[in-house]
Each structure stands twice: as C-alpha cells, then as structure tokens.
C-alpha cells in the first residue's frame, strides 16, 4: 500500500544514498567513552568505595543503636516485672481526648505511677485515663 505512493518511492530511492562522512572528532569521542567504560578511573573507584564505606558505617550505627535500645527496654521491663501498667498497650491508639495528660500531683515525687493489676476499685486509674470509661 505504502510502496505504491510516488512520494514514498521517490524518497526511498534516494534516502539511502545519503551517507555523509562524520568528522574524525566523533570517532575520538566514542573511543574515549569506550576507554573510560573499560577501566573505571581512580576517581570513580574512590567514589564507589566512599559510598560503600558510608553505607557500612550507617548500617553499623543503626545496628548498635537498636541493640542499645533493646537493652534499655529490657532493663525497664525487668524492673517492673511484678507490676503492670494500668493502661493496656492499646492506649497509644486511644482517641485524641486522652492525649492531653495533666501532671499527677498525688504520690511521691520522682516515682513512677504504677498499679498492681488487681481488680480493686481503689487502684483504678482516674476517669480521664481510662481507655474504657464505662468501667
């Protein structure tokens, strides 16, 4: 279909005949690029090394930090092994109205407020801190 078009014919005939000689500089440029690809320069290698070292270092830092963190929480957990917090862990996802904690005035200074997990109404958390306020 396309080949019957006179314009198509006209162009196909002659287009292939056009073969200009590229400048010598073009080959030099290609040569240089191939050369560079073949053996990466010292600079490039140094760069790769620097990145690798940085990556390793940051990974190590993260690992150490996490280890440290674990130990800290473990120690705390051991200390409070006999008691349990009043609030179950879901408190983090509690509604916004619960977030606005007020300082606790009762009790000793510098002491954590903890409560035994016994169903004793005397030890219940203040109403504002209860997850389920209907209890």
């Amino acid at each position, binding site marked *: 279909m*396309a080949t*019957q*078009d*006179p*314009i*198509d014919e*006209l*162009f*196909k*005939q*002659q*287009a*292939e*005949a*056009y*073969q*200009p*000689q*590229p*400048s010598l*500089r*073009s*080959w030099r*440029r*290609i*040569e240089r*690029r*191939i050369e560079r*690809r*073949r053996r990466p320069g010292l600079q490039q290698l140094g760069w790769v090394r620097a990145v690798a070292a940085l990556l390793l270092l940051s990974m190590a830092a993260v690992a150490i930090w996490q280890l440290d963190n674990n130990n800290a929480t473990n120690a705390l957990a051991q200390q409070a092994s006999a008691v349990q917090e009043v609030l179950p862990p879901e408190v983090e996802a509690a509604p916004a109205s619960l977030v606005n904690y007020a300082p606790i005035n009762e009790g000793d200074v510098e002491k954590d407020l903890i409560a035994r997990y016994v169903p004793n109404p005397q030890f219940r958390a203040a109403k504002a801190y209860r997850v389920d306020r209907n209890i």
Partner: protein
Amino acid sequence: MNEADLINACRAGQPQAQRKLYEQYAPKMLGVIRRYIFRLDEAEDVLVEGFFKVFDKLDSFNGQGSFEGWIRRIMVNEALMKLRKKHALQKATDLTVINPNHFSQDAKVGGQLAVQDILRLLEQLPVGYRTVFNLYVIEGYKHREIADLLGISINTSKSQLILAKQRMREALERLNYPITSK
C-alpha cells in the same frame, strides 16, 4: 573478516575491530540521523551516543535479523530521544516558502530527487510531520510502532503522515518535480 567475526572481535573489545565497525556504518547512520536532526553538530552528538550504545549493548544482539537494522534502530531511537529532549516533537512550525534556486537542477531534469534535496525537503517539514514521515516512509515502521515510539496515538501518527505527504507533494510541485501516480 566477515560480519560475525567483526561483531565478535568488537565484543572482545578489540579497538581495531570497533574502529572498523564504526567506519563501515557511521556514514550511513549519520545519514539516517540527519533526516531527523538536521544540524550537523547535533546529529554527530547523536551518532557518538548511538555508537557508544552499539558497543555497549553488542552482547544483546542475538544475530537474528540484520546487524545494520539493529544499529539503525539504536540510531533512530537516539535521534528521537534527542528530539524529545529538545521538546521539538511538541512544536509544530509551519512550512516555510521553498526557494527553488536552493535545489539542484540536475535532479529536476532526471526526474529524480537529488540526495541533498531530500534532506532540504525534510528539513522544511514541521518536526512532528518529518519524524513520522521518516519513520514510516524511510524506516518502514508501522503506525502502531510509531505511536509507541513517539507517545502519540495511532490516529495521530496516521494523520501526521497524511499531512506530511501533502506538504511534501506541494513542495515537490513547487519545485517542478514530476509526481506521477502509478
């Protein structure tokens, strides 16, 4: 040294072989590229980029189909990428008035387009028309392939080709080239 040997030598990274391959195909490929990108310096940039890719990806040439066709596709792709980078494919400049004096006289007499006239005529076309015309008429791509390559619809490709041919016919008539329908 036949073509397969030459390709293998290039794969092995032999500089003489690479030079030979370049010398064998560079003029033809520069001709291909210049039909898309008229400016010689820009066309040579594309040639350099294209040949670097050829040597770099030579391992992926599986020997099926012609090697020249494989190189050619790389060059056409590079040329299109260059056009895209220049955002030239979005621009549509109008056909300027063609001065017949700029075209060779001999070709007219022989009823054949002279080689350099092709380039001039192509250059007069808006970039979008020219690109579709090149891809379809000279490279033999299908409209579906052109649509994929240029990120346009198949219908746009078709209509651009029709418009390109229309412009080309007008230009040729102005230059008194005989257009005879078979």
